[in-house]
């Protein structure tokens, strides 16, 4: 495209927009290091010299954020592991095998893709209580662990791998799983990275199902812990002033943002691939 060199106005507009997007994050994180009273008396100012960890100390005493992180990490490891192992495998079956019933089964995948999560919440909750799984890790992990979208996406990526490469592997005497592991997986590594990053973001930020499925403190994921922050803090500090509560609230919110933001900055490209592909899900 023979674009004109962008003028100052373009940079100003994009710069202003960037500022709008970044300022709330900056404000939350920087305010979490301020002395509590200043969050209210001087919300716009920030003096590095007066930075303090008081908010974090108080928050760690009042909020079970460690439990939240541990539970999220556990769910992320198992649920993410299941997605990463089973979804590309199923995608491989749909992309490279011909078998009776394939269209029917793939139709099922597509149908599931269009199903809003909302419709399943109530019956899933009832199923969990019938199984005695309310407030358990399996309730957090199993539903949605092998999801249609990831299978669909991996099928698209694996379908683009030339069959000749696989035939070469077969000649070398590799079995079906060997062909998958030694030929397909290495080629689709960028797609797998995108899937990993997207899965991580979705599981880490997931809220609707965890808040319904779990109500005891021991199994709460990070997001569920965060959702009741204000109640938690005021409950532990009867009569605490706004400033103290807010300082703890901002400390907890900031800590929760940091892991994903770091991963995002490091793995930008995979993130954007993942988000673009993941947007199909809705």
């Amino acid at each position: 495209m023979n674009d004109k060199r962008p003028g100052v106005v373009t940079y100003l507009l994009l710069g202003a927009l960037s500022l709008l997007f970044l300022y709330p994050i900056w404000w939350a994180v920087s305010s979490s290091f301020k002395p509590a009273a200043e969050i209210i008396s001087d919300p716009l100012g920030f003096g590095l010299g007066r930075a303090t960890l008081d908010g974090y100390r108080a928050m760690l005493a009042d909020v079970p954020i460690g439990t939240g992180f541990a539970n999220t990490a556990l769910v992320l490891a198992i649920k993410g592991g299941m997605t990463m192992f089973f979804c590309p495998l199923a995608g491989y079956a749909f992309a490279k095998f011909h078998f009776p019933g394939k269209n029917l089964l793939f139709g099922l995948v597509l149908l599931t893709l269009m199903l809003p999560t909302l419709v399943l919440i109530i019956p899933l909750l009832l199923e969990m209580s019938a199984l005695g799984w309310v407030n358990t890790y399996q309730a957090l992990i199993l539903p949605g662990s092998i999801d249609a979208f990831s299978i669909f996406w991996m099928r698209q990526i694996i379908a683009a791998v030339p069959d000749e490469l696989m035939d070469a592997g077969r000649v070398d005497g590799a079995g079906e799983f060997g062909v998958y592991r030694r030929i397909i997986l290495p080629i689709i590594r960028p797609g797998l990275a995108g899937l990993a990053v997207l899965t991580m973001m979705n599981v880490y930020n997931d809220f609707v199902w965890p808040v319904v499925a779990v109500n005891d403190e021991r199994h709460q994921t990070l997001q569920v812990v965060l959702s009741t922050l204000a109640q938690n803090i005021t409950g532990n500090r009867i009569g605490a002033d706004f400033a103290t509560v807010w300082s703890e609230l901002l400390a907890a919110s900031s800590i929760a943002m940091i892991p994903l933001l770091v991963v995002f900055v490091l793995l930008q490209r995979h993130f954007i691939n993942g988000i673009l592909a993941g947007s199909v899900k809705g």
Partner: protein
Amino acid sequence: MTLSRRLTPYLYILPFLLVFAAFGAYPLAYALRLSLTRWTGAGEPRWIGLDNYTYLLTSPEFWASLGNSAVIWLLVVPIQMVAGLGAAVLLSNARLRLRGAFRVAFIAPFVTPLVAMAQVWIVVFDQDHGLVNHALNLVGLPDVGWLTSTAWSKPTLALLFLWKTTGFAIIILLAGLQSVPAPVYEAAEIDGASRWRQFWSMTVPLMRRSLSFLLVIQTLAVFQMFAEPFVVTQGGPFGSTTTAGLYLYDHITASDLGTGAANSFLLVILVFALSLVSVRLLRAHDE
């Protein structure tokens, strides 16, 4: 072909089928049956036919929740489509510097956990001590009840949604723009079409796919909006932010599960219908 090669694909798909049967198909069928019964979580469900549906369709609260979502949709989607397309056009300029940095800044909100930012929203938009009113006072403007007045509660939540997802919309539209082939523009340039003209008569029609795609997923997202009102306003003040998604959740807290199931199906039907209509409109408008 050996037997094992013939069985292999089924084996690979089996885990998905098991999970889907247990946590997809079964609960879905169950929900359908549940929506035709009266059940409060204890005792036997009682068959009541379509009563749950007629109850909802004649309930002012159900319509109010849809109305609240519709207002938020109006506050979010048009702004996001127009501003998103504008920003995407600026970003797509091949000679733009710092594109990577801009892209990071735009996507960052999308990566932050919604629940954490919802907490931040409570603090920033607090009427007495919040950042926004503090800034308004500095320039001599009076306090606004961002979260405490029925007039401002929806715009404040819409703003959270806009802040969180507009960068995502920009990235989707940018990818769409970059798939518009360069020769199309070159030909137009030779014909002497102005930039503005090029934008309306070529870019927008060629972007139809990306735009309708965005329209559909954001419509789905707004009508399922749950965490924002749940955390920031608990549906208040005076029910002004009880969105369709939050109203659905209220049935769970009230143990009115049959009605809740019926409500989810009505919502799904509505969301699908809305998506279809909006895509049709976008097509008709362009042709």
